[in-house]
């Protein structure tokens, strides 16, 4: 049975902060045109850094939102979670399996073959762009693959990108040695 699609509902746990009201208004329009569910709000005093207008977003969509604003050359100061300290995890853990290395960033793990640099597995995560990135990246050489940040939309893809960048650095370092 194939079914239709009805209406939308938003969830707001992230804020985009701007230098100017003009930028905030432009960003809201650009993101709405791209299908994101966003709205203009006043940032809470503790998060206020530029102008007193912010755009509320679903934080998990940060990667796609950033890319869209970059493509449209729209300036913004920062994207922050409404709650918490607003710092993305920057810890990377590496596990050596002998022939392969697994690089872990937050909930995402990327494993590549040390000899060939081929991505042999991606595990972890839970956002819907991860199975797509998994299919796109698997069996590709890490030096030739497109970075997850360029194709993903969510925080999971951003964490996968961190694991990817670290893996690429490890692969290049190993090639030099």
């Amino acid at each position, binding site marked *: *049975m*194939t*079914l*239709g*699609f*009805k209406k*939308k*509902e*938003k*969830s707001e*746990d992230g804020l985009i902060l701007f230098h100017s009201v003009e930028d905030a208004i432009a960003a809201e329009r650009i993101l709405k045109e791209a*299908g994101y569910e966003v709205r203009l709000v006043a940032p809470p005093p503790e998060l206020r850094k530029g102008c007193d207008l912010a755009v509320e977003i*679903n*934080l*998990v*969509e940060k990667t*796609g939102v950033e890319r869209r604003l970059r493509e449209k050359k729209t300036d913004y100061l920062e994207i922050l*979670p409404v*709650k*918490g*300290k*607003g*710092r*993305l*995890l920057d*810890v990377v853990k590496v*596990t050596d*399996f002998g*022939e*392969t290395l*697994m690089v*872990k960033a*937050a*909930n995402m*793990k990327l*494993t590549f*073959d040390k000899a060939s640099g081929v991505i*042999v*597995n*991606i*595990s*972890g*995560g*839970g*956002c*819907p*762009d*991860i*199975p*797509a990135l*998994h*299919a796109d990246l698997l069996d590709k050489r890490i030096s030739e693959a497109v970075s997850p940040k360029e194709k*993903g*939309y*969510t*925080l*999971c*893809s*951003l*964490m996968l990108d961190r694991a990817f960048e670290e893996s690429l650095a490890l692969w290049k370092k190993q090639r030099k040695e």
Partner: protein
Amino acid sequence: MLLICGTIPADDFPLTVGPVFFDGDALILDGKTIPCTQGTAALASAACTVAGHLGSERPWALLVGDRGTGTGSRALYEHLIENLPSLSPGVLVLHYMLPIMGLMKKVCRSAEQCQRRPVMIADAAAMYAAKAAGLAPRFDIFTPDHSEMAFLADPEASHPAYASRHLFESDGAMIPELARASFQQKGAAAMLVIKGATDYIFEHGQMVAHISEPDVPALEAIGGTGDTISGMLGAFIQGGQGLCDAAIQSARVNRLAGQYAQATPATKIREIIAAVPTVLKFHLKK
């Protein structure tokens, strides 16, 4: 009925619901073929395999294409909100979908309108949405991995990417503490099935089991090995097992399947799932 809900990595796969069949290679839903890859497809494949072995009713799946934009996920939430009471599944597994807190709240409200409240299981981003929205206590089971425990134990994190650094850096020995903290802070479901080098099962913040044999370290690297545990868990519960027994059984079967498949970090999830029938045949506790 076991109802599995999630997204698959396709742009053109419409929202589809119905009984799902795994032919040993791919999933078949309403005549559509879905490759058995990491994510909800792996979960559903593992569930079908267990249900087939137990001779229980074929699982149902509610699947939609979504490559990350969230359009398919929203359609999935909306369908659940409107139709859960009429579907009235015995077990509901929520999996890969864009975490949208407002919609997850409505799904939980809709689940309460079922004739009998389903056993509620959340994994992947459905678990992120449930925890971030303060809905964790309304779920029966969460199935995090070790790194996701840092997220569940951090009351301020809305996604694992924002989990506290010191919680993320804590080693496996801290899992019991993280599980207790997450339960006390209402960041955990009644039961946690924590997947990792050692699998832990907690009920109401107390450890009730841990499984570390056979030890197959490569499983952590293989995309989909957490999904298969969640799928088997749903199928064992639907087949009549208690929640704790089903959790222990799923963790054991997954490890044994890894062992039978002679898993390496390069093994693909379909190879692990292919070993499940053998494990069920020779090792399933009657």
